């Protein structure tokens, strides 16, 4: 099945009037066959079929903005030099 929105050159939110108007333009342009144009119109004027078409030919998924991560964690000052490695000296 071809994409009816492409054939009629309409947006996915096009209303009935726009679809009818687009049908006339498409017929004039003759880019697609009459049968293809008719099928596309039928597809978009039948809500159940249009819903199926929307499923098969989705609009672009809107990706959310990727937010940077806020880092606000207090870190105490303690260092390796504070560790006496001879604390458990076994030869004392």
């Amino acid at each position, binding site marked *: 099945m071809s994409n009816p929105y492409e054939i009629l050159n309409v947006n996915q939110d096009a209303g009935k009037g726009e679809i009818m108007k687009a049908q006339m333009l498409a017929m004039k342009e003759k880019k697609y066959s009459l049968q293809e144009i008719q099928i596309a119109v039928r597809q978009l004027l039948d809500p159940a079929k249009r819903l199926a078409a929307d499923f098969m030919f989705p609009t672009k998924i809107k990706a959310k903005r990727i937010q940077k991560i806020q880092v606000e964690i207090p870190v105490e000052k*303690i260092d*390796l030099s504070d560790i006496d490695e001879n604390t458990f000296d*076994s030869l004392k």
Partner: protein
Amino acid sequence: MEVVIILIVVGIIGYVIYQSLPNPKFQKASSLFDSGNLVEATKILNVIFEKHPDAPAKLAECKLKEGLKAKPKSDSEAIKYFNEVIDINKRLPSNASKAKYEIVEAKAYFEITVIQFNNSISATNAETKVKYLKDNLRFIDTATKSGIESDFTALRKKHLSELAEIYFQFGTQNEKSTKLIEAIQNYSTAKDYSVQSSNSKILYNSTTRIGICKLKNREHFEPTILEDVNKAPLEYKRDFYYRYTKKLLQDKEYSEAEKVIGTHLNFSSAAIDKIKELLKNKQVKSAIKKVNEINYTIEQLYENSFPVDDVKSLYETIDKRIEEIKTVVPTLSDKLQGLKPSLFNRLLSHYISVKQYANAINLIQKYSSFWESPELLKNLGICCYGFVTQGNLTEKNYRIVISNWLTAVFSDKVILKSLDTTTWDDDYTFTLTDAIGSNYEQHNDIPDNANYDDVNDTNISIGATQRELLQQFEILLHNTITDPSLSKVVNDYYMEEREAVEQIVSVINNDILFAAPHFAKTYGLNEEIIKELDNDYIEYSNEESLEAGVSYLKSHTDTYVREYATAKELVSKMVSAIKNEKLNDLKAIAEDRKKSLIEKYETINDTAEDLAFNAFTLKIEQNDENENLIPLMDECIRFLNQNEKLKAQCSHFIHDYCNSKWKTKPPVKLLELMIKSIKYNPNNYRAAKLITILINNNLMDIANDATTSTSQIYSLIDEVKKIKSQVLKDALKELQVLRNKVLSSMGAETSKTILLGYNLNSNGMKLKKVLDTMQTLAGGSSTTSILDLL
């Protein structure tokens, strides 16, 4: 008198000569040795040293004994005697028994070694001790050890163990004065000696101390030493692991440091608390650093217009980062988790926009529990549709693509989700009333523009949308696959998967995801489906539920669905055995336990006979003279409790078979088969007629001496008599007519004689029995009737 004197003189001379011989002298020396008179024994043995082969060994024994006697008083005196034993070796005659001597010599060596060892360990200076011990080891190496090798080995080990202890002490002295390189050398030597002497205490201690020295010296050590360290004394272990933890912290190996603290430093101490605090501090800093790196990467992504490879790389590493920091800074790990959907969305939208559907499908499938999200399931469906549109279906991927698609479309939640993104539908509402994969009461939360009302011009059927999607996909499958064999496989598979999911939709009333079988089995969703189907069967005895579950079975046992599938498989195997004429296979299937399994499920039980009947019909059509079918039929009749059709089929088949073999098979064999035929179908008129003819022919063969199977024929006839069949009884009456014909062909006198049975020879007797049998079977008395005589 003179004679007597001569004899005495000769005797004395003989005695003297005898006494001067080596053997008696050796015996005398031995007696003296035994009685402890070593001096006298030594004298004699010195005299016969070269004359008697055992004399040197005995002499050595004397010296050894002398040495042992002297040992408690004086080591040097004892050693002098033991050395005399050893010196004998230098002047050992060629005829001497060397083996006997060497046993004594070895003992002398051993005694000297023991004395020297005791002297070594009593030395006050450690260096001297080492020198003595090493000298003595060399002495042991050169000593004769005949017969007491194990004593020498044990003594050698004692030396080595002493050396291990001494070198370990050297090491500790070095370590205390911070001569770490020397300490490591001495610990290593101690370790070598401990291995040779099996001194495990020094082994573990040396290894641990080497580790400690290397840690002090900032040197690398092999992790294999940890095994030995764990066997060292507690104070050594704590010392080692505390230093080791500090090293791990220096090397930024925080998770390893955490493990060491948890395992080996899990005791209460301010120092431990401090190192734990430091560890935590380091881990937090490391986590912050990692998050800052991610923030930098995000900045770069925005600056470079989101190169997909960089997004992918960040997305793929994020789980690892979350894992690394989740126990340290859970808040940061949660924030990272929150980043995943955005990155996922970016990637997915990119793949879909550039029509890289395979990448998109893989991305979604890797997302944990993606099927729980209607949004993701919807996108999966979209990608599968796009993937098929591009003609990408192959032998390898068609299963998962088809199964994904069906699962997405059969989920009414997915279609409801589509309503979120439509903008043209303001004038419409959508109804779930005839949706596929929907249960009226189940959705508590549906969008405002969805309902469960009837379909009309403005209340649009979601079911119609789903059916449209299925139809469009089916058209796509037919149109996009050019390879005819793949096309068949794919379309058949699609129908199987679709029918399977339709079946579960029709029987399951609870709100679960109606996944197609392959999808369900891949992601483990079949467990829940099988459970639902089992419950439905338990509650309603609905075998349709079990039938629906068969496609969803994977490794399940102990479920009704599994049992049902097993029963079904048995029937398939039965049909296959018929098809391939495998009697043994059929016998293997037809066990009583399996029989009861089939009988348990009505649907299977009802269809099993038809399936067998059809299989036999096919076989008969292929070859109607195939005798092999008879035992197969017998087995099936025995196995199936519903078997009337099969019995009738078998009865007719045997009849037709016997008819065709009339000229080639012996009559007795044909009679035997026909008995089976009438037993399976007592109303088979044609079988009854054929049996009558066969009995007549067999009896005539007996009468004419044309058979050797007389007794077999009579026993078969006895079997016929027992068959309860009115049709057969009626047919057998014909035998009366045939009997009369026989009688009339004989002439009156002969027949009278035969019938009365007087003075009959063997042939006469035989004929009489034949005629009597015919009469009995025909329903008359075996005794001669008066009518026969008229």
